């Protein structure tokens, strides 16, 4: 039997597979056993009451989808009275995803979520859909540092910073988050994109722009996980187009300690369970005792300079 447990800072997860924020709610229990997941991650909540973006909120693309849901949120009291007790009925650790328009708002909400039943806070400093042109704290190392510092100071819970793939240098951002006390990094949120309906000349999303997810983005985010994991010591949680155990294994080889699965669940609601079983089989077939051995195990042969030196000779 493969040991599927992984450590994310002080938390030990029964396996490395969890839902991506925004793609999971209690409705999944109609189809899948949530107690088999490594962790549960809530849809992002805000203190502000939010209706979300105008419709349409999703659009299909080649091997993926665009979404501009816009974080509908019923606020903190509703979350504490309804969502939290509902989620607390399941055994996996509960990770609460939070967002706020300001750094002070992030700190305030992190403090409000520091309650029994919450195992960690995922700071969604990267949603492309709530600020103009996809602006988010995680776009720059400076604003990431300021946000993570404030959240770190407001809670004793582990803080996971969810980064954006829409930045020029994600490794710099990752390093800034780690330096300010993030316990783990989630790499990454969706890639800002858009689509236009050629029959109507209208944008396919009510918000015009939205986040691209699904298999189409996997190579890009895999590269970003690799870049981040090389630069930081805290665990990196890979998230981007993972549909199969093979995708998850690839992310772990690139440096991820765990993975989040989102869009794949929309197509196959038991995708996460299949990925857990598939990872166990993947490791067993290679005589690996634990799935954690995969993390960062990509082999990269350094070119032997002595042997290739002659190529440069005239």
């Amino acid at each position, binding site marked *: 039997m493969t040991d599927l447990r992984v450590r994310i800072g002080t938390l030990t997860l029964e396996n490395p597979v969890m839902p991506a924020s*925004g*793609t*999971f*709610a*209690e*409705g*999944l*229990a*109609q*189809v*899948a*056993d*949530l*107690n088999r997941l490594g962790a549960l991650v809530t*849809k992002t909540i805000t203190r502000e009451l939010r*209706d*979300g973006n105008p*419709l*349409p*909120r*999703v659009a*299909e*693309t*080649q*091997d*993926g*989808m665009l*979404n501009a*849901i816009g974080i*509908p949120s019923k606020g903190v009291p509703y979350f504490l*009275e*309804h969502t939290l*007790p*509902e989620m607390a*009925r*399941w055994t996996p650790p509960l990770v609460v995803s939070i967002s706020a328009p300001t750094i002070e708002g992030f700190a305030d909400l992190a403090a409000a979520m520091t309650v029994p039943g919450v195992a960690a806070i995922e700071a969604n400093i990267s949603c492309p859909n709530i600020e103009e042109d996809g602006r988010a704290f995680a776009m720059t190392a400076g604003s990431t540092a300021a946000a993570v510092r404030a959240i770190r100071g407001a809670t004793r819970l582990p803080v996971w910073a969810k980064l954006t793939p829409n930045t020029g240098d994600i490794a710099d951002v990752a390093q800034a988050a780690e330096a300010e006390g993030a316990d783990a990094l989630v790499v990454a949120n969706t890639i800002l994109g858009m689509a236009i309906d050629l029959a109507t000349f209208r944008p396919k999303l009510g918000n015009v722009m939205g986040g691209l997810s*699904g298999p189409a983005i996997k190579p890009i985010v895999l590269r970003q996980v690799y870049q981040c994991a090389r630069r930081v010591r805290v665990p990196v949680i890979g998230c981007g187009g993972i549909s199969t155990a093979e995708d998850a294994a690839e992310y772990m080889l690139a440096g991820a300690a765990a993975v989040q699965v989102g869009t794949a*669940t*929309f*197509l*196959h*609601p*038991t995708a996460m369970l299949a990925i857990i079983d598939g990872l166990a089989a993947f490791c067993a077939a290679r005589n690996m005792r634990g799935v954690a051995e995969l993390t960062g195990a990509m082999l990269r042969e350094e070119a032997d300079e002595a042997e290739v030196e002659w190529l440069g000779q005239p």
Partner: protein
Amino acid sequence: MTLPDATAPAPHADDDASLPPAARHTGAAAEQTATVIANAAVNAEYRHLVLHAAPPATGAAPGQFFQLLCPAPPGAAPFLRRPMSVYAADPAAREVAFLYKVAGAGTLGLAGLRPGEALDILGPLGRGFALDPAWRSIVAVGRGAGLATLGPLAQAARARGIGVTAVLSARRPDLVVSDALFRACGADVLAITDAEGTSGPIHVERLLRRLIAERRCDAFFTCGSARLLAVQQRLAREFGLPGQVALEQQMACGLGMCFCCVREFNVGGAVVHKRVCWDGPVFDIAEAMA
């Protein structure tokens, strides 16, 4: 054809009050590979897809829906599943059926399915119609694909001894679907069409007022037309009648997770967003906003 149970409680609890202390996977819905038994045209626009399937799919209630992973037709690649309301569910025969019109890449892919081929279905999903055993007679008003959604309701009503008057609206008489199913259930069928000039709101209102006067309308059930919904909402308010409407919306997950299928509802004077896939697709007619 076995009757779906329209009085069974919805597969998910309304709110948190009745939650058990420890949670379990409910199995109310499942993804499964069904096999195509038949997939033939019923008129110039609609096709009837019959699948061999297993529970829980075969226990689908009227008004519930499935998320179908449609095969890709040539030149297109539907990425997401397509929601489709159930037209028939038969646990004894292990069958589920759908009535659909080719409207895009997903349904075009469905149209190419041949008997013996496989289709990945997820369901049954959502909250279906609810029938009050105290009712003696109901009126079902539908148009287009909405007629398919209302079809199984007629069967469930008959099983409870509730009479049904079906007002079926279409562009032309040859495009009326579900009428045979309604008639087989003993329903009184009134077909109204654009071609005959009988489908306009004024005519429909006159017709519904007559049914109310004849005490044949203890409740309205409707699907497929915002215009017809508005007429029934007005009459329901005027005569204090209950009603239910099955609504459609673009969906991604079908399980209440992604919040892409929200619509606006008037709940006690306040406009609130509800998820069609999870809070519906059947809603109180008084709350729906056309």
